[in-house]
């Protein structure tokens, strides 16, 4: 039997049993009412026909009345009890059969064997056939026959049973009952057969219906996929066509210099769009395939927001938009989430806000909701004063390849996948993205994510827009990278491209062609006391790939930052690189801004020996620079005081130093130092591990100076 048939048979059996139970319960209820009525009629008949028996002039209640009252009541009670406690069961119908036939017998006795009351026996058997369970008929028949035979056994002189004269009549009575039984049993068996056939037919229809539904679902899924592919093809083809077209134009011999520049810019712009689109599609595909994994690690939401603000502020300022970040409540110093995906969502929401806002500004509101509950949440609200949307536009906003309307793509660009990805990522982070909008007035997106338990997590207060202002940095493109970089890359084009990007940014680049050479170069530089500030490690190289090289360096005790370069953007790549010992992860093709941003993340000017903590603005006044220099000179002294306090176990002094440093460092342009000092103060205030926090602060001071 094939699995489908097995399933149909199982379903048919279930339907048959359900139908049988329904029939039995319905018939139970019918007999319940009938038996109560018969009990009442029995008492009435007994009281009417034979209320008393006489012994001379002495009357006594007739045994008929007693039987109608006592065994009659027992019949009713038995039937109703099983009917109520075990309805639809074999027990209930056999008890009911006994009760029903018992009343038939009683009526015959009460009426002195009137012919009409014998019809009750035959009628009752027919009623019992409603159960479509032939053994019930046997039970009923046995009760009727017992009455017939019992009189002969109890009173052998009686004429009703075993005397020679009436034996034939006894068999005749029984014969008529069996005669009826034969037809009723045949009817029951046929009824069961038909019920089974109906159940099987219903199971087949259900199966066919399910198959149809599954087919429809599959077709719908296929249709959706086709639409998705059609959209995707269209979205990819459009920039590709532009790239090809402008590349053709470039090859024209009579192209002027200005046209050539315009063509190259167009090709570059379309290339960037294509890259974003492919990244988005990969993300969406990974999410929909369930392959997207998110981390739940301890991370600082403030750091993520500072990072986003530093990235997006420039774009907002380019459009002369106000850009505010407001902490509406205290927020946890750390939450359990995925900082990369959180950053991706917020960047997308803020990017949209900037894109669709021409006047006014962008406001990022941050608040922690229900921090003391079992399910605390972080809400990041991105509100703009842009064009806003109608209800209809909102309805399709989170659908892939859907923007508010088709003209939006032409006017504002974008892949139409960003919000779909945001919503799905938010779901993976245990939250959601919602939106409120008024056409012409603006839009607010709300990102709510789970923070994980906040027990023992310090709550940070006093963050403000000023914090962002201090930490906000110029666009990475314009940053100066004063670092020694070792580039391990075997591809000639990428060697030239990356080296050019880095040298233009001010970095000193040493290049090698495989992992083995990279290991040798890195260890040699470290041994000579001039280690590289950052290693850019291509993960696919001949001889020794990036994974092996990184593992070898870490095994040798190499501590410097290693940033992985890979052409893959599939799920798990990042984790694989980090597992090998890399500190960060970049995907090719390498964008200059991203590259610079990543290097600065691991080698900031603040850590450079001869640079201030933040890149100095060109117009910074000399007096301020002098004050900063003085503060920098005082840092060793502060470090010494901190060491003394730590050695003495003087937590009060440690807290005092941290408090002083928190205020001063922020003012002199050392926001990171200020943040670490704040943590020491908070740790002391909440009774956490002050020594560990102080050691972190000491390290930060030494790095800062």
């Amino acid at each position, binding site marked *: 039997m094939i699995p489908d048939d097995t399933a149909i048979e199982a379903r048919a059996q279930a339907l048959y049993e359900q139908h049988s139970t329904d029939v039995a319960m319905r018939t139970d209820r019918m007999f319940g009412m009938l038996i109560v009525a018969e009990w009442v009629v029995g008492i009435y008949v007994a009281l009417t026909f034979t209320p008393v028996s006489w012994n001379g002039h002495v009357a006594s209640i007739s045994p008929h009345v007693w039987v109608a009252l*006592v065994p009659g009541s*027992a019949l009713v009670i*038995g039937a109703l009890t099983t009917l109520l406690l075990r309805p639809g069961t074999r027990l209930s119908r056999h008890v009911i059969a006994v009760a029903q036939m018992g009343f038939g017998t009683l009526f015959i006795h009460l009426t*002195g064997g009137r012919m009409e009351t014998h019809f009750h026996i035959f009628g009752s058997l027919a009623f019992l056939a409603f159960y479509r369970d032939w053994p019930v008929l046997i039970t009923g028949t046995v009760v009727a026959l017992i009455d017939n035979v*019992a009189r002969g056994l109890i009173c052998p002189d009686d004429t009703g049973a075993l005397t020679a004269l009436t034996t034939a009549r006894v068999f005749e009575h029984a014969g008529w009952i069996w005669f009826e039984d034969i037809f009723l049993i045949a009817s029951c068996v046929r009824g069961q057969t038909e019920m089974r056939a109906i159940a099987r037919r219903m199971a087949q229809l259900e199966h066919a219906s399910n198959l149809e539904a599954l087919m429809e679902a599959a077709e719908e899924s296929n249709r959706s996929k086709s639409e998705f592919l059609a959209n995707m093809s269209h979205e990819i083809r459009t920039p590709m066509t532009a790239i090809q077209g402008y590349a053709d134009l470039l090859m024209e011999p009579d192209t002027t210099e200005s046209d050539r520049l315009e063509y190259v810019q167009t090709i570059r712009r379309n290339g960037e769009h294509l890259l974003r689109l492919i990244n988005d599609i990969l993300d969406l595909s990974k999410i929909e395939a369930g392959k997207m994994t998110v981390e739940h690690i301890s991370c600082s939401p403030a750091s993520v927001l500072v990072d986003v603000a530093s990235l997006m502020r420039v774009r907002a300022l380019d459009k002369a938009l106000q850009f505010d970040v407001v902490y509406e409540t205290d927020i946890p110093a750390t939450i359990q989430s995925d900082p990369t995906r959180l950053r991706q969502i917020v960047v997308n929401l803020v990017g949209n806000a900037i894109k669709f806002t021409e006047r006014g500004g962008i406001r990022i509101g941050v608040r922690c909701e229900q921090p003391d509950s079992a399910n605390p949440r972080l809400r990041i609200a991105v509100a703009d004063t842009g064009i806003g949307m109608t209800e209809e536009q909102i309805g399709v906003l989170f659908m892939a390849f859907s923007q508010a309307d088709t003209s939006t793509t032409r006017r504002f660009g974008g892949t139409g996948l960003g919000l779909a990805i945001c919503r799905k990522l938010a779901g993976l982070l245990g939250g959601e993205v919602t939106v409120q909008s008024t056409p012409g007035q603006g839009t607010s997106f709300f990102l709510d994510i789970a923070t994980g338990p906040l027990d023992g997590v310090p709550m940070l207060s006093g963050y403000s827009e000023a914090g962002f202002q201090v930490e906000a940095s110029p666009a990475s493109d314009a940053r100066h990278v004063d670092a020694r970089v070792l580039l391990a890359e075997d591809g000639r084009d990428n060697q030239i491209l990356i080296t050019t990007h880095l040298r233009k940014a001010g970095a000193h680049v040493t290049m090698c062609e495989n992992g083995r050479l990279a290991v040798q170069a890195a260890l040699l530089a470290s041994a000579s006391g001039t280690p590289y500030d950052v290693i850019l490690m291509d993960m696919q190289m001949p001889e020794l790939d990036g994974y092996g090289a990184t593992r070898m360096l870490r095994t040798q005790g190499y501590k410097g930052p290693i940033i992985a370069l890979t052409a893959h953007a599939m799920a798990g790549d990042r984790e694989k690189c980090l597992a090998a010992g890399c500190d960060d992860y970049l995907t090719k093709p390498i964008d200059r801004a991203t590259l610079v941003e990543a290097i600065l993340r691991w080698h900031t000017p603040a850590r450079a020996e001869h640079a201030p903590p933040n890149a100095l603005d060109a117009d910074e006044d000399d007096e301020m620079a002098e004050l900063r220099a003085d503060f920098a000179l005082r840092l060793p002294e502060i470090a010494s005081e901190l060491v003394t306090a730590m050695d003495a176990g003087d937590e009060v002094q440690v807290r005092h130093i941290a408090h002083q440093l928190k205020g001063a460092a922020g003012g002199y342009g050392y926001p990171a130092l200020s943040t670490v000092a704040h943590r020491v103060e908070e740790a002391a205030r909440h009774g956490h591990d002050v020594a560990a926090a102080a050691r972190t602060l000491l390290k930060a001071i030494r790095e800062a100076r």
Partner: protein
Amino acid sequence: MGRSLWIMALVCGWLGVVGIGFGAMVNWENTPGEQGSPPARWPKASRIARTGRATLVIAAHEHCPCTLATLREISKVLRQSPDADVDVWAVIDGSEPSEVADAAAEFPWLHVLRDRDAAELRLFDGLTSGEVSLYGADGALRYHGGVTGSRGREGANPGAAALLSAILKRDGPRAAPVYGCAIQGGA
């Protein structure tokens, strides 16, 4: 004791109660009444007038509900012997209006004698309602007993068959048990 055994015990108990009750009823219905010893020849002291034909005397309790079945059975016997010359008398004790007297009035072939002082019943020694005595035209007792199968139960039975045989002067039993209320006794 397991749940199934409890259920089985309850069902058995229930069947026992019902069975005992019904058994007691059947036993009561089928227990014959006491029969008297009527005189072998027609008693001259009887108030029933003889017409030169056979005479069937039915002893009846004025309230016994079982007696109606006796009258109906005799009615069937008479239908089966249309040529027989038989006078049928119901001797009903008491003189007050009663269910049995009312029912007897509905049988046109039946003569009713209300036996206020039960003298006639004593003469024929009728002890149980439904007890019949058939005397031939010659005054000899030909049948004595009941004509129903059990208390108040109609239908073919040896008593009615024996009475028919006696009326038709055929061979056969001349006695059968009688089922009904005791006419004499009690207070």
